[in-house]
């Protein structure tokens, strides 16, 4: 396995090499130095390790519509929008993630072992986002489908204008956003959290003690008693 060094190659060349890997192949990306767009658009099930801190959009647009895709591990922190529009596969970040982690992800699983900043899981479209630590303000904003697990505390405005995505929080919630409500945990919820906790390796999260946040569905339709506001 030849290491791909960001000191020697540009991001475009590195991504080209990663896309050329055969299914089951492995690659190391070294000296990332916060470069953006690393491992973006990788369609096949390959294993990629990024040895250091990465920049924006790490692993974005990767994977296929059937949920298959690369397995990417970042040994460091990542910038904005890790796994944006992820289709399949998985991304694991050993450090923390900046803003908009997992934004618009349609599939796949993103695990953040540290904290995630503001707007984590914004507009999530079916992917899974698991954060071991805290999540910043406005996380889960307008998330349409999928699952967000926050192992620590959630910031203000959690789940604002939520559609059908579901958020589970192990710690405290600073405040809920518009139309977000705490809901009863069902057996299916418990099962989903148990599975995710196990897959993510979040030993500190007790699935029986998480808070479920979902949509009250009051923003779905125009309500005639609101017409005075327009």
């Amino acid at each position, binding site marked *: 396995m030849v290491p791909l060094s960001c000191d020697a190659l540009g991001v475009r060349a590195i991504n080209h090499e990663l896309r050329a890997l055969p299914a089951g192949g492995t690659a190391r990306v070294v000296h990332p*130095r*916060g470069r*953006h767009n690393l491992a973006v658009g990788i369609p096949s099930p390959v294993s990629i390790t990024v040895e250091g801190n990465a920049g924006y959009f790490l692993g974005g647009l990767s994977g296929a519509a059937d949920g298959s895709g690369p397995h990417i591990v970042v040994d460091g922190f990542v910038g904005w929008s890790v796994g944006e529009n992820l289709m399949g596969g998985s991304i694991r970040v050993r450090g923390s993630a900046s803003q908009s982690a997992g934004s618009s992800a349609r599939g796949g699983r993103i695990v953040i072992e540290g904290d995630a*900043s*503001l707007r984590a899981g914004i507009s999530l479209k079916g992917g899974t986002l698991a954060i071991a630590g805290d999540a910043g303000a406005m996380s889960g904003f307008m998330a349409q489908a999928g699952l967000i697990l926050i192992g620590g505390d959630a910031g203000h405005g959690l789940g604002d204008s939520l559609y059908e995505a579901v958020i589970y929080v192990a710690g405290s919630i600073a405040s809920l956003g518009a139309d977000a409500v705490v809901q009863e945990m069902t057996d299916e919820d418990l099962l989903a959290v148990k599975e995710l906790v196990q897959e993510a390796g979040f030993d500190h999260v007790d699935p029986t003690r998480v808070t479920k946040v979902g949509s009250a569905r009051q923003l779905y339709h125009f309500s005639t008693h609101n017409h005075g506001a327009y």
Partner: protein
Amino acid sequence: MLVSMLEALDERGPDSAGIAVYCDDAIGRESPGRPGCLKISLGSDDPVEWQEVARGLTTRLGAGVDWQPFGAGMVLSIPEDLEAEARTSLATNWPEIRVLATGRNVRVLKGVGRPTDTCARYGVADWAGYMAVAHTRMATESAVTVLHAHPFVPSRDLCVVHNGSFSNYATVRRRLVAAGVEFDSDNDSEVAARYLARRLAAGDDLDEAIRWVMKEMDGFFTLVISTADELSVVRDAFACKPAVVAVADGYVAVASEYRALAELPGIASATVFEPQPEEVYTWFR
């Protein structure tokens, strides 16, 4: 250090750049630390014969004037009480020249074009100082000229750089203009800088003045604000614009992206974090 930071973000702001450096160094016959000496950084969008300007000013203002070339312009050193006279003389005789900064310690260079080219052209890597602020601009609200480039130095040693855009700047600007504040450009960031300077002049400390900016000015911003002995960073309530801080052994560095910090010495063992929205972070010299 600053040059490597600026070069890493070259493509973020390829239209113009500005660099402020704070140093205790004397100019000409100034004795270091002698009270009463004011440095005035001058620049222009037009070609200027700086030596002639310096000679002319010495004739008009007297023997207390020293100067040295600085970047595309020059830095004057004059007795503090001659500031008004120097400004009048400059405005009357060389209207194409603008005062980029005044202060005991700060010097400012601004250039149009790629930041990397500006650094190379003026040997910025060889400059010395205890604090420096650089800005790469990708203009959205106003023209690309030297005068529109950041940093803005609205009062002595107060330096402001801004990433973002203010939506109500015209309203605040009208209020400031009505109160007698003069502007060098129609740049939205300059409004925030002048507003800050006004609050400080009214007796606010830096922290209070920054909180007033957050209250009065609407828009997206990461602001880096420095005085002769303080450095502050603040982000808007939605943290719409990025910022990363590294606190390392011997220095504090703030940048828009981690890429700019990745090459700094000792970064692997530094504490790296993102400033929280609406929280004012300040470090002292």
